[in-house]
């Protein structure tokens, strides 16, 4: 296992955005989501199961995700999540606002450097 300092804790609220992004790529189960976040972020971001599942269920309850039981790669029953129409709109809005925010933050940081 890699050292703790290499990893970044998720900013409050960003987990929802990450989940929406992963799920937007195609139906996926909870384990798959945690794996992909880890892989895509090159092992920087690690999601604790204790926050992943409550977040998934909250999003499902809000109507942004839809869930169905289906067969996983190893032939077992797993709960697959996919984006609802509402979730798709929400994802677009959140993605835009995240990009604006992060651009703004980096701009300020760069200004400080010069």
């Amino acid at each position, binding site marked *: 296992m890699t050292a703790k300092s290499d990893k970044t804790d998720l900013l409050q609220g960003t987990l929802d955005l990450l989940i929406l992004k992963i799920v937007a790529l195609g139906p996926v*189960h*909870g*384990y798959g989501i*945690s794996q992909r976040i880890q892989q895509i972020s090159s092992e920087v971001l690690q999601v*604790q*199961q*204790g926050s992943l*599942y*409550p977040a998934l*269920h*909250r999003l499902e*309850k809000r109507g942004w995700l839809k869930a169905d039981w289906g067969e*996983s790669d*190893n032939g*077992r*029953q*797993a*709960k697959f999540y996919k984006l609802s129409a509402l979730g798709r709109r929400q994802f677009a809005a959140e993605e835009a606002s995240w990009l604006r925010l992060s651009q703004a933050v980096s701009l300020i940081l760069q200004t400080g450097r010069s």
Partner: protein
Amino acid sequence: MRAFWKRNNADDLDREMQFHLDSVIAANIAAGMSPAQARRRALIDFGGREQVTQQLREVHAHAWLERLLFHLRSALRFVRHSPSLAFAIVATLALGIGANSAVFSAVDAILLRPLPFPHGDQLVRIRQHDEKFQTPESFVSTQRLEDLNHLNSTFQSITGYYTGDATLTDAGTPEKASIAFVAPRFLQTWDIHPSLGRDFTPQEQVFRGPSAVLVTNRFWRTHMDADPQAAGRLIHVGRSANVVVGILPAGFLFPDPEVDLFEPNPVDAPYTQDRKSTCFAVIGRLKAGVSTQQAQADLARVETDLARQYPATDASFSSQVQPLKSVVTGGVQGSLWLLYGAVTVLLLIACTNIAALLMARTTEREHEISIRFALGASRSAIVVQLLTEVLVLACLGSTLGLLLASAAGKFLAWLAKDLPRLAEVGLDTHLVAYTAVCNLAVTLLCGLAPAMLGTRRTLAGSLASAGRSQVSSRGSAQWALVGVQISLAVALLIASGLLLRTFRNLSRVDPGFQSAHVLTFHISGTWAETDDMGLLGRRIDQTLDGLRSLPGVQAAATSGSIPGNSTAFPSELKVLGAPKSSVDRVTADLHYVSAGYFATMNIPVLLGEACRAGLPYSTAVVNHSFADLYLGGVSALGVHLKPPADFMDAAQVCGIVGDAREQGIDQPAQPTVYWCFSAPNPDPYYLLRVSGDPTSMAEAVRRKVHQLEPTRSVFGVLPLDAHLSDRAAETTLLTTLLTAFAATAVALVSIGLYGTVSYLGRRRRREIGLRLAMGAQPRGIVSGFVLQGLRATALGAVVGLCFGAAVSRSLHSRLYGVSQLDAATYASVLLFTFTLAGLAALLPAIRASRVNPVDILRQE
């Protein structure tokens, strides 16, 4: 179902977690760990499976609870931030809902619920009318009743009863009891069973069969010490001993709550064979699904058959079938609905007041609402939040209101002890359910408009402008609410104004007799003792003489009816030896009075002389109207009048007396003939004019009667005034309550108008300050507000006048000496309303105009 869903959901959670864990274990094994190690590693990474499941459960289970808690917290914040506003709302609603629920509980128990008998809606009263007589209802003979029961095809059974007085002789002093003689099938028709003992056996219902009585629950408690072994005991009624065979259930108060004993009326007795001896009031139970119209048509068919069979006695009958419930509650139906309407109007006014208050507050919270919008809350979410705040306050209000209403039940019982079915009024599920519905309706009425308006404004507006520098907001919604309130209050004021005028008119009427200082009572007596009218008359005259000898008694008399509280009994008379008779049919109200009646009642003798005792021939006295209408005034003396009944002789008119309102203070005097006859029945009303307080004589009267006639009892001892106020009790109650409601409505409306003007004044402070700084006169600002108030008042008043006119149409039958469109009443209501509205607007308007322009400019 719900439990199943929960379990299923929990299973799903478990399976999902298990899958994740297994996948991690599999990945660990693939990375080269041993299975045991892989498993341990996975569990550590997972970080407490139970904890995660618990968190998930909370996501699902507490979502709605969380929302509720959020709204509750926000409602509590409301209370904390404006405690006086919250208190005002809760108190207003408690009173409004309390009064409404209280009147509803009476409406529900008395008018809506079926009578407390199995299938109570099948019970009907059958009124028979014989065209040969003028009376509205003719009683039915035993044989005819049996025929009606056998020949009809729409009734399960038909039965009847008549009541009489009897003397109980078990105790030391004789005591009066009320006894109902019942036709066969009596309990069967009501479909009730004795709570102790049994019904009459067929043997007990035949002539000279074993004597048997049923007693009411009240009699059983007061006279038999609620003895559980009471069935089979003997009681002595008059001279006969009777076996108590059963005790009726506690709720059975029919046909008359006064009745103590029930005794069978044998069908085969010699005295029940004559079809002319009519006595029964008739009760029937319809077959299931039969309407009163069908039953009435069926009875008409039976009557035609009977008329053919017994042309002499049964030829001219007709029947009217009425649901028993409407007979029992008939009189108060109008009053109760009217009160319910009034109290609902009051609640509506209270609601509009609260809506105006909330609207003001919502506008003040514009900023807060804007922020919530900006944070992404939907409009419906904000509306729901605002409504929840109101709901919490309304719940508090209606809980208090419910307590008030259940207490009001007792108050009502004290206020209106003569209401039918009052014992059935009380706190029950109906009342609670009604209050709950009321609560929701009130929440929507009070909260919806402010919430919708408050959130609409914010949609258009923006964060930045909130609370700053607007000149707008004329408050048209607020003024509309004021108009609605005024219209409702004006309608209530008109109704109570008309009733108050009626009340005043009645108190000014000269009834033609003097009711003060007169004591009334009965002395027990029955036809069973003697049917010799001469003997009866002599007994009563002797008793009267004895009573006259009591110190303090100025005059004494008997009468067949209570002056000022008798039912009209118009009869057709023949005038013999009249000089000229311009009218074909002579009909008059007949009264039987003893010598001394006119002195006792202070009715002046205009001509001739009053009734005298001991004359060998019959005499009569006529009133002024009768003499004027039928006998040409002066020449009336000496004329003979022949009454309708065969057994009575013609009587010579010996005097003319002043008109007296015998049928009620509110009924003009009718042409009346007073038959000089002290004993029209064995227990006429005794009337004593005494020098002091009539009630203080009661004991002396009892002692005297006991001394004169030790086997008789004195009962129904009441001042005459009490009879008269009993008669007016319902109108008095209605007037009192409606006036109270109208006063409350006026107070609420004044507060509402005052609040609206002060709110708008506060809100437009900046604008007023600027205008003053620009040189506007404070007077102009004051008059601007007052004129706006008066305009809303005028619009409301016009609508209110229409409401009022509609309401007074339903009051029509209760009004006396005032028309339902009485201009004076309407005008004074308008004057009152405008004066009050002007004042209510003026005071806050003056305060609003006292803004210091410098302060405002500094804030800008």
